């Protein structure tokens, strides 16, 4: 995912983002040998060009001293991988780990550009689909590179952790974390392969009914947890709106969205027709932790274990 080019022009970091990219490219063209030339003598002035998950090229310091994430999941990742002293802030929604709460808050919606600028991060990390390109462009204009990560699968999250390790020169820690998560995932998947896989519907909104669609991480998480997404069609929207009839047709065996009593009083009193589905008749309606469900963070494995526990 990441390809790097070593550039050793002194004072490069102060050069504007756009220009930086230009010089970096020029460097690649003129000095192909740059790639192999290691210059430990001036690591602070070194920058390199990297490509983020969206294919955007960015020039980042080789060793970022001040970093920040613009989404809660990436804040969790940073706290797991980075030197916590190098994390300069968090957003209003970043509440994990507890240590994050001590960092200064930058609102990400609407984006508080001035506050962000005042914290002088060398690079900020953003999740595709949560931070818009428009906001990213605005942040880049302030001279702060925005590195995007995007995840289609649980494996992508582990890859994201390793990428962060590379970008922050914390490869050892990141790889150790990713390896241990990988091992737990493997164990969960082996346990799950023995039993039947119930059809699981996860509801994110009651009125209208929005659910976790096929093309969300949830589908992949269920694979490890021993279930399958009740939504088998892929819709344009990752979280599609469904009709009652559609839900009756797929007849989910498990519903995630709240505990039985609560869902009975809210969701099923709003749509009494849905009391015919298997999940309701067998009372297999459960609540799981929202943040574990929605955040593509290192705790994704914890989320899978929680899903597995209710599916059992």
């Amino acid at each position, binding site marked *: 995912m990441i390809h790097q080019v070593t550039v050793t022009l002194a004072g490069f970091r102060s050069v504007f983002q756009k220009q930086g990219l230009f010089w970096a490219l020029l460097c690649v063209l003129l000095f192909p040998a740059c790639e192999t030339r290691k210059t430990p003598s001036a690591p602070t002035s070194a920058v390199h060009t990297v490509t983020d998950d969206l294919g955007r090229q960015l020039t980042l310091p080789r060793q970022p001293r001040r970093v920040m994430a613009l989404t809660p999941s990436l804040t969790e990742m940073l706290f797991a991988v980075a030197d916590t002293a190098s994390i300069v802030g968090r957003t209003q929604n970043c509440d994990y780990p507890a240590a994050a709460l001590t960092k200064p808050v930058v609102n990400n919606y609407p984006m508080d550009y001035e506050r962000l600028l005042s914290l002088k991060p060398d690079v900020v990390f953003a999740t595709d689909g949560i931070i818009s390109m428009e906001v990213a462009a605005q942040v880049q204009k302030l001279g702060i590179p925005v590195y995007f990560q995007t995840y289609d699968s649980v494996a992508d999250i582990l890859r994201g952790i390793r990428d962060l390790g590379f970008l922050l020169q914390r490869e050892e820690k990141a790889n150790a974390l990713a390896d241990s998560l990988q091992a737990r995932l493997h164990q969960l998947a082996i346990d799950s392969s023995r039993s039947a896989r119930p059809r699981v519907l996860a509801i994110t909104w009651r*009125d209208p009914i929005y659910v976790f669609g096929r093309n969300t991480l949830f589908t992949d998480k269920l694979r490890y947890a021993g279930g399958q997404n009740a939504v088998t069609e892929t819709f344009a929207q990752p979280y599609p709106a469904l009709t009652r009839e559609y839900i009756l047709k797929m007849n989910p065996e498990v519903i995630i969205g709240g505990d039985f009593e609560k869902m009975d*009083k809210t969701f099923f009193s709003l749509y009494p027709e849905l009391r015919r589905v298997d999940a309701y008749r067998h009372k297999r309606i459960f609540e799981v932790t929202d943040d574990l469900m929605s955040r593509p963070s290192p705790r994704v494995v914890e989320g899978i274990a929680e899903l597995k526990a209710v599916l059992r």
Partner: protein
Amino acid sequence: MFLGVGLFLGLKVGSLSTSYATVGEALFAYDPANATHYSILNLRLPRLLLAFLTGASLAFSGYLMQALVNNALADPYLLGTASGASLGASFSFFLFADLTFMGLYLPPFFALVGSFAVTLVVVVLGSRRGQLIPSQMLLVGVALSSLLTALVSLIMFLSDSESQLKSVVFWSMGGFEKADWSNLGYPATALAAGLVVFFFLQRHLAVLLLGADRAETLGVDVRLIRWVMLVTVSVVTGFAVAFSGPVGFVGLMVPHVTRALLGATNRANLLFSALAGGLFLVACDLISRWIYPPAGMPVGIVTSFFGVPFFVYLLRRKNYRFS
């Protein structure tokens, strides 16, 4: 005829594939254990009827409203119904976390209270000594709607969770998926009552279109009939909006289409307006579900996309005059 085709197609289209024979079976030989039969009678039919009732109510109210203020731009939301309902619904999202109180789903209830309260304010400010002044009411309605929209924006701005924000947005898009046999009765009763009242008053209505002064000399109690129209519009629109959300454009367009097709003073205008409005919305709901299955895109988008070109065509075709 259109009505029959519309209703039939509405029953046939859904996620569970259905043949024409199944629709017939579900209607005449209902088997409660059969999922398709169940869907047709308990999901598709209520949804269809709610779409029909909403369209009919809005078109009916729009026709009355245009006659009441004698203005081609009037629609049923002129009395602040939509913005009042939005404010009411927004309050319920803001105040109640799980939106239910003793088994009652609160947003429609709050929307209804909001729309009536706002209509009352518009009427009080738009009348003088018991006499409605249409032009003044029109201006008050427009001004108050802006104020209420601003209040809804304020609530959205102050909302401390993303979920409240989403609730307000989703509500404002409208939809028929909550349709249920238990809640169809309210809008149906309101519309039926309105239609009956104006079945007896249709001559007065036609005379009123000639202008208040001439109607007065022809022996119509203009003051009384205006009040009746006002109350009818607010009740009928209020119930439609409370259950389906503020669906736009139907209430403005369908009355004009009616007049373009039948003439400005045809006796069947009100009834035709209601039927055409209902059918139009049923068709729009079908199209929306067909384009964007399964839940459909917000019906307001479809009404405008398909309604506006037809509307413009009709207006240009006949040298159409409002009165």
